[in-house]
């Protein structure tokens, strides 16, 4: 079966190459497409990859088997011998000294690097300000006004935290370093995908635009998996709290609580803020005001009573144009605006009958 020039051999060669690239985390970018093309080329390629991957895994099954232990010990002592030989060069070459000096220098540099890594990088926008940020790995952040994001990158994780406001994340694919964004009680975990996270009136909003994300309750992301998680047949023993979104869906969850709901959204409109358009779709006036306030100049908007807080509004407004917003809302709803210090406060008009409890403004 294994004659020279047997195409099976070539397949095994290629499959071994793919296997090693996968194992080393070096299969990235275009390589995925080439791997896929190779798999689809011929069912025998798939079979070859299967054989190689099984072989690779079989070595993991019992690394402490006596026959393997002997070889591991040999390999390690071989490695140790070679290591020590490198450090015992003839003195004339002065290599050990140079090497030692270089090693000290590297350690010092690594120490400084480590210290820097522990400090998160903070990106912040002020009222009325938007910002685009490109991170080291090629991921991009688009920050809404009045927003703060902390970024911590380490060798095997990319951890971000949204402290306030809203941001859209375009994640560069890196299978070895998962990308996560924490906001309140939720952690969104993703690789190679696009989504936004927003903190709004004690709730977290996650909208997925592309790829897939997993929204974990924060405890699940930090604490070890509970025993039930390991023992139960379904990995989703925690399923009530951990959710997976598909593109075009929005998850809304309390900042501190477990409850969450998922709904479909208009992906294009929800991205309007990036071009200065704020679209509301049957949302409480309070939420709309909080978003408008990210752009408010001298006068912020506020809610004055429960009746106006309970209004649900729909419509598109220009970020920063609070006058038009006030006009639009007071023109449709039985509410008025009072000036209180540096704020415009919405209150219900006492005498007028309520025509509808919801309406659309444009």
């Amino acid at each position, binding site marked *: 079966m294994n004659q020279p020039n047997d195409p099976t051999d070539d397949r*095994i060669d290629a499959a*071994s190459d793919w296997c090693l690239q996968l194992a080393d985390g070096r299969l990235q970018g275009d390589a995925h497409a080439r791997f896929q093309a190779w798999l689809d080329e011929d069912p025998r390629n798939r079979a070859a990859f299967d054989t*190689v991957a099984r072989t690779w895994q079989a070595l993991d099954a019992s690394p402490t088997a006596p026959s393997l232990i002997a070889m591991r010990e040999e390999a390690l002592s071989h490695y140790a011998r*070679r290591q020590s030989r490198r450090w015992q060069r003839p003195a004339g070459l002065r290599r050990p000294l140079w090497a030692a000096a270089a090693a000290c220098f590297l350690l010092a540099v690594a120490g400084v690097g480590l210290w820097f890594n522990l400090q998160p990088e903070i990106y912040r926008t002020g009222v009325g300000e938007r910002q685009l940020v490109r991170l080291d790995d090629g991921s991009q952040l688009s920050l809404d006004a009045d927003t703060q994001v902390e970024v911590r990158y380490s060798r*095997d994780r990319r951890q971000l935290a949204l402290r306030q406001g809203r941001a859209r994340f375009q994640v560069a694919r890196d299978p070895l370093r*998962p990308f*996560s964004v924490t906001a309140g009680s939720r952690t969104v975990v993703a690789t190679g995908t696009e989504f936004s996270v927003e903190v709004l009136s004690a709730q977290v909003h996650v909208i997925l635009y592309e790829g897939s994300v997993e929204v974990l309750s924060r405890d699940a992301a930090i604490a070890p*998996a509970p025993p039930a998680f390991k023992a139960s047949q379904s990995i*989703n023993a925690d399923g009530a709290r951990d959710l997976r979104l598909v593109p075009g869906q929005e998850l809304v969850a309390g900042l501190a609580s477990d409850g969450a709901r998922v709904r479909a959204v208009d992906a294009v409109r929800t991205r309007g803020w990036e071009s200065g358009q704020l679209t509301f779709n049957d949302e409480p006036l309070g939420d709309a005001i909080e978003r408008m306030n990210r752009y408010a100049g001298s006068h912020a908007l506020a809610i004055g009573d429960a009746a106006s807080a309970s209004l649900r509004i729909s419509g598109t407004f220009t970020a920063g144009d609070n006058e038009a917003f006030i006009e639009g809302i007071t023109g449709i709803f039985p509410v008025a605006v009072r000036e209180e210090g540096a704020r415009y406060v919405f209150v219900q008009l006492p005498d007028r009958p309520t025509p509808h409890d919801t309406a659309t403004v444009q």
Partner: protein
Amino acid sequence: MPSRPATPAPPSFEQLNRRFRPALMAFFLRRLGHHAEAEDLTQEVFVRLASVDTGRMDSSEAYIFRMAANLLRDRSRREKVRFDYRASAQADEQASFDLLDPSRVAAGRQSLEGLASALRELPEDTRTMFVLYRLEHLDRRDIAAAFETSPSTVDRHLARAMVHLARRMGDA
């Protein structure tokens, strides 16, 4: 410098990737056929592993492949809504026939002896590099430094070892 084979330190994400990614891909490819889906589900296994404290994580093969089988089952349940019932029922069935299948474990033990003797047949340097990489989880650059060669030379040795072992397994 490591001197004993037993290394109980918590596995790094890189280590887990090296140990399990190829086989997870193969596992999902066997059952799904679509590369992209297999890639997504493989990724999901690692996302879930990453969201757990690595220090206390169960990184055993059994745990990881049970997780993989469960993801596959969850997926087929989701797909059931949209796709043909028979296909998903079959996927469900396949998901339970996972890598924990006792007959496969027994076969694994037999083939381990085959693997050990196949490893013995390799030239010493090739075998040493492969064992250091695959079983001691050393970085290929560290191996290259010890052998005073380049990482790409180490890659060639690793590939040669892999091909030899896979052929032995394929023949069995």
